[in-house]
């Protein structure tokens, strides 16, 4: 009996000691891998967001997809976490919040990344891991931010139209052409969709002669994003034309706003 008891105590202390050793071993490595010093804000993308989502998921606050983009789901999860742990509820991944998360959760980077890319095709998987190796920022998010009301495909279609119409124009001229398309969508007298406005017969020469099917470059896409996000250098123009090649006399009768690059923009 006595012997047994001593045995049990021995076993117990052995377990305690090993737990201590494991904790000492694990915690520092965990610290190395933990968050960068940045404050993580809604809308952010990248490695820290992946870790934030993984840690929130580990502790049961987040049940969405781990995709590396700080969207609304992550935001509410983070706020709930801050509420439950009696912290200031600001929805920001600040120093205190991150420390608390590191204390109460575990994060295995390799495992999380492996699961993240598992749902994707092998080619994307490869590019993901390559980027990971090449870029010390770490994991490539599997989602992207999109402006409210527009999908990636809408943006692509707009970029096609802008590239076809204005690829020779300065950057601002490309933002301006994108703005005109968006102003037409808003206007009561034009169709209400991206495709409706772009493919309206005789509306854009690039559509008529097929240049819209050229592959747009990154500049055209960035110009489209700027226009969607609220930049309108044209001042609410609905029409534009090239004064050197315009054939219609009607277009000259529109009140002109300004010229950007080769195009005159008008109401």
């Amino acid at each position, binding site marked *: 009996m006595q012997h047994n008891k001593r045995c049990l105590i021995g076993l117990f202390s052995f377990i305690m000691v090993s737990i201590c050793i494991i904790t000492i071993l694990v915690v520092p490595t965990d610290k190395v891998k933990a968050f960068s010093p940045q404050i993580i804000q809604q809308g952010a993308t990248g490695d820290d967001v992946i870790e934030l989502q993984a840690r929130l998921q580990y502790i049961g606050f987040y049940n969405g997809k781990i995709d590396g983009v700080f969207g*609304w789901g992550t935001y509410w999860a983070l706020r709930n976490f801050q509420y439950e742990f009696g912290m200031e509820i600001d929805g920001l991944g600040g120093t205190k919040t991150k420390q608390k998360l590191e204390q109460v959760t575990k994060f295995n980077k390799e495992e999380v990344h492996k699961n993240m890319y598992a749902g994707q095709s092998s080619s994307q998987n490869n590019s993901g891991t390559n980027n990971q190796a090449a870029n010390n920022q770490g994991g490539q998010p599997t989602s992207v931010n999109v402006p409210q009301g527009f999908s990636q495909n809408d943006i692509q279609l707009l970029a096609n139209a802008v590239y076809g119409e204005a690829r020779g124009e300065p950057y601002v001229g490309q933002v301006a052409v994108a703005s005109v398309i968006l102003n037409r969508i808003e206007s009561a007298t034009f169709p209400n969709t991206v495709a409706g406005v772009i493919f309206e017969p005789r509306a854009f020469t690039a559509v008529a002669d097929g240049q819209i099917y050229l592959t747009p470059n990154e500049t055209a896409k*960035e110009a489209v994003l700027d226009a969607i996000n*609220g930049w309108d250098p044209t001042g609410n123009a609905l029409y534009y034309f090239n004064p050197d090649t315009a054939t219609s006399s009607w277009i000259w009768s529109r009140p002109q706003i300004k010229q950007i690059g080769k195009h005159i923009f008008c109401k």
Partner: protein
Amino acid sequence: MFRWISILLLVIAGVGVGAWGYKEHQEKNAVLIQAENTYQRAFHELTYHMDLLHDKIGTAMAVSTNERLSPELVEIWRITSESLGNVGQLPLTLLPFNKTAHFLSQIGEFTYKTAARDLENDPLTPDERNDLEELYKQAEDIQQELRNVQYAVLEDDLRWMDVQLALATEDEPMDNQVIDGFKTVEEKVEGYEEGNVDSSIFALTPEREEYQSITGDDITKDEAIHASKEILNLKDEDITVTTTGEGAEVPMYTMSYRDDEINAYMDMTKKGGHPVTVIMNRPLQNQTLSLHEGALQAEEYLKKFDLKNMILFQSSEYNGVGIYSYIYQDGDIRVLSDVIQLKVALDNGDILGFSGRNFYSNHYDRDIPSPEITEEEVLDYVNENLTVHEVHLSIIDNDFGEEILVYELLGSMGDDTYRIFINAKNGNEEKVEKLSSVEASFS
């Protein structure tokens, strides 16, 4: 022998070319007919819808009970939107056909406004009855004119592809019946527009003066150039400056600069010299700043231009840049239409863009009423399956362009987040938006 062979080869080649040419011709015709058919369909549908629209407005006027009126108005609304769709498919953008489209959108707006309200308790006013009658007459005339054009098209076998050609070569004398017919339709509508000015159809959107918040003395071109060099951080470069034309909402100077690497652009109001649009495009280096640090830069910038009481509304990171929206806060009330957008380069924190158009054109000193519903009461107006996380008092523009005081509720249901606006005066649900700012990447 050799001669015979070459003759034979030539004959074969000739026949081959002929056959190929014939096939090409056939294919071209097939494509042309396809395009023609699309136009014909849109046009005939448009005339049919105008017929229907006229009949339906007549029916709506004859309906005796308010209970039956709502579905009739909804039907008119549906037909106007389909007619607008037809107009959008006709090759007429370069013809001034926008007045007819405008007429259609007016009927749409009128019927939407009346159909969406509770006609049992709030029936059509005599003024609105008059408007409906007016619209009925206009629809009749437009219908008649369109029928004339349709008759000409069918009788003389007119082709829309010919209209295309006529439009493309406009310096030739135009006697195209379709174009002439549409011009008549357009003139009819124009005639009504002038007569309609006092009507309440036009009073749907009360125009408030735009750009009220712009104050100060007019600045000169040189002052504008000087200020833009400062803002765009271009010290010695040659900046082109132009002034806006008669179509501009407010007179502005436009400064621009372009070289191999960068393209800079800026709009500044003549009055007071307020920067309205700033765009700076340059190649980006590796990202060193977080989205949050970018926001601090954006806030510095707002301070520099003395834009006070602006709070961060939304932020997103795209390929090395941060895009931020700031909205104006009046006391503790958020004004969602007074919005300023900023774009910050996350390599060194430079401001790559500033857009104050919405802010400057909307902003004014508001006299905001106090809400008649309390923050606790408003929760009774929302769907019980929704978990509400945040409640704000806000000012938004409703469907008719009027500013209203609302409770803005942010809540989630399942995995989705919603923004719900409840009128702070009467508890009406003004708008519900599903917030989707993240999409699975395709690339």
